[in-house]
């Protein structure tokens, strides 16, 4: 929307000509100028410039919807609102499961079961809708090389023995999990940016990034000056692109941050525990789940109270 050309905002030809001489060609360029600068480049009066601003704003402003319309749209398609995790107590607390169309963050100390959870959710996403799945492909961005295809098949076979009764079904499932090994921040960001086409062509319904913290920790040393800003820049850009993708294509996205940093609170205390990078930089994740070795899973999504559920990993 920001990159929309001014010509498409229905400004007159000669005005667009004049503005392009000052290198102002998109709505973004236009709206970033102060009124005085606009008056100078357009050569028009204060009131006329105000009207022009409104015209350009109308071209890139978002559409209005009432909360009622949003609710109606959701109720038309209730099953597609969540991906059930098949853990009943967890689903109950989360009002359905992993929400589609938003970003979910899972953090924990190492060894709690984040990657296992992600592998399980990948299997679930490939299941048909009648079984509670999303009947779609999965994009798995692996930065730690922790993904094991054998484990994927093991989980699928043990969890749903009746469905995955033939090798063919298993192969079909594995061919819809697309694995990308990215080992640097830049590679991860590039991969995220290029996801839009993949989502459409491969009919992707779930995106998992395992994990963001490991690749960020490797590259950014917070003791060095300037690294903190760069790191937060990288994370924020990634997050905003992911959010856009999640909302546009209504897919749930699981992003995993790694182990908890020791300086931000003890591990036993669920609410004092902060994710590896998220809280340090004030990243807003919509749903944050904290795995803890003692308590299991403690979801703290917006809107629900914090409840403890015991999980066993098998």
């Amino acid at each position: 929307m920001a990159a929309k050309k001014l010509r498409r905002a229905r400004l007159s030809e000669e005005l667009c000509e004049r503005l392009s001489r000052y290198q102002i060609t998109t709505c973004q360029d236009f709206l970033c100028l102060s009124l005085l600068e606009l008056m100078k480049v357009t050569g028009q009066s204060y009131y006329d410039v105000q009207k022009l601003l409104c015209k350009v704003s109308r071209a890139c402003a978002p559409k209005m919807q009432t909360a009622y319309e949003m609710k109606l749209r959701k109720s038309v398609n209730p099953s597609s609102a969540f991906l059930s995790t098949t853990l009943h107590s967890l689903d109950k607390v989360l009002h359905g499961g992993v929400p589609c169309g938003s970003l979910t963050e899972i953090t924990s100390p190492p060894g709690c079961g984040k990657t296992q959870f992600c592998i399980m959710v990948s299997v679930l996403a490939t299941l048909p809708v009648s079984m509670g799945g999303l009947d779609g492909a999965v994009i798995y961005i692996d930065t730690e090389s922790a993904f094991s295809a054998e484990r994927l098949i093991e989980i699928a076979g043990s969890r749903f023995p009746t469905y995955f009764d033939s090798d063919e079904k298993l192969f079909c499932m594995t061919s819809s999990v697309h694995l990308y090994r990215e080992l640097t921040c830049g590679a991860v960001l590039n991969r995220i940016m290029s996801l839009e086409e993949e989502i459409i062509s491969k009919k992707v319904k779930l995106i998992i990034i395992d994990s963001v913290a490991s690749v960020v920790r490797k590259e950014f040393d917070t003791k060095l000056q300037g690294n903190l800003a760069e790191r937060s820049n990288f994370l924020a850009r990634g997050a905003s692109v992911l959010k856009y993708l999640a909302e546009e294509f209504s897919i749930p996205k699981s992003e995993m941050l790694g182990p908890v940093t020791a300086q931000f609170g003890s591990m036993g205390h669920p609410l004092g525990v902060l994710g590896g990078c998220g809280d340090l930089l004030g990243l807003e994740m919509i749903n944050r789940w904290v795995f803890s070795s003692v308590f299991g899973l403690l979801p703290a999504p917006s809107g629900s109270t914090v409840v403890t559920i015991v999980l066993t990993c098998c």
Partner: protein
Amino acid sequence: MVLTFVEIGISKEEALEALQVVRQECHGDATRTAGGSGATRKCTALELLEEEQAQGFIITFCSALDNILGGGVQLTKITEICGAPGVGKTQLCMQLAVDVQIPECFGGVAGEAVFIDTEGSFMVDRVVEIATACVRHCQLIAEAHQEEDNLKALETFSLESILSHIYYFRCRDYVELLAQVYLLPDFLSEHSKVRLVVVDGIAFPFRHDFEDLSLRTRLLNGLAQQLIIIANDHKSAVVLTNQMTTRIGQSQSTLVPALGESWGHAATVRLIFHWDNSQRLATLYKSPSQKESTIPYHITSHGFRDVQPPAVTQNAEDTEMNPRKRPRREEEK
């Protein structure tokens, strides 16, 4: 100009009279159209006092928070809510978007709400929960008092009407946010009942992809100015949510509101939400009329609420309104 007249030898008052006569002759129409909005910006403190006392507040349903704010979120002012992720900023915004619609007979301002979302954290299902609890609360009051006005107001105060009067805009980047704020005055003129504008959050689109920090400061200041004008002209409250950032000091790091020092001047009232072990706290950090204080609050399934002290005896009405509160206290123990 007066001095030149005084040189001629007349007194300052006579000079002023002469000037005014001359002005009226020359400008005529121009002053009449341009002075329209200017005239309302000038008034005495007495007039302002009367206005302020007659003005309503938007209650938050957490009486402790309403108390430290002096009654609730004030109209015609910008209130900023800062806090770490997950502490309850969006919850309060959603609560306010519902509370602004409470009819006047129940103590509300009977307005509508504009919700500008830059982070995508607006959850309709959650608003449905909050609105249902609010309607239930008003119904209980109406049943207890049995007044005509209350019952009549309840006919129009329903879940559907609350949801239909929350106008939602999803801005994906700062350009869309700027565009939307430029268009807001026109929108508010068409929807004159709007009494609350929420921007959740103001920091997110400005915190990345900005190499030119001076441009960022300029854009933010412009935004702040426009929002102040909107708040005053349309008599609405503007609520902004801000993120926290870490300021690395020499020996330690502290959490401070994001967007820098100059942004701190934009909001009239600043609230900082933070954690203390497992208790959520709200601190009134900046206010022209209330003193700085901290209170605890809770987020329940019904929305933003007070922390109930365990010693308080609950009568039948309370248990009906907040049936979830007792079970949780037992769980916490």
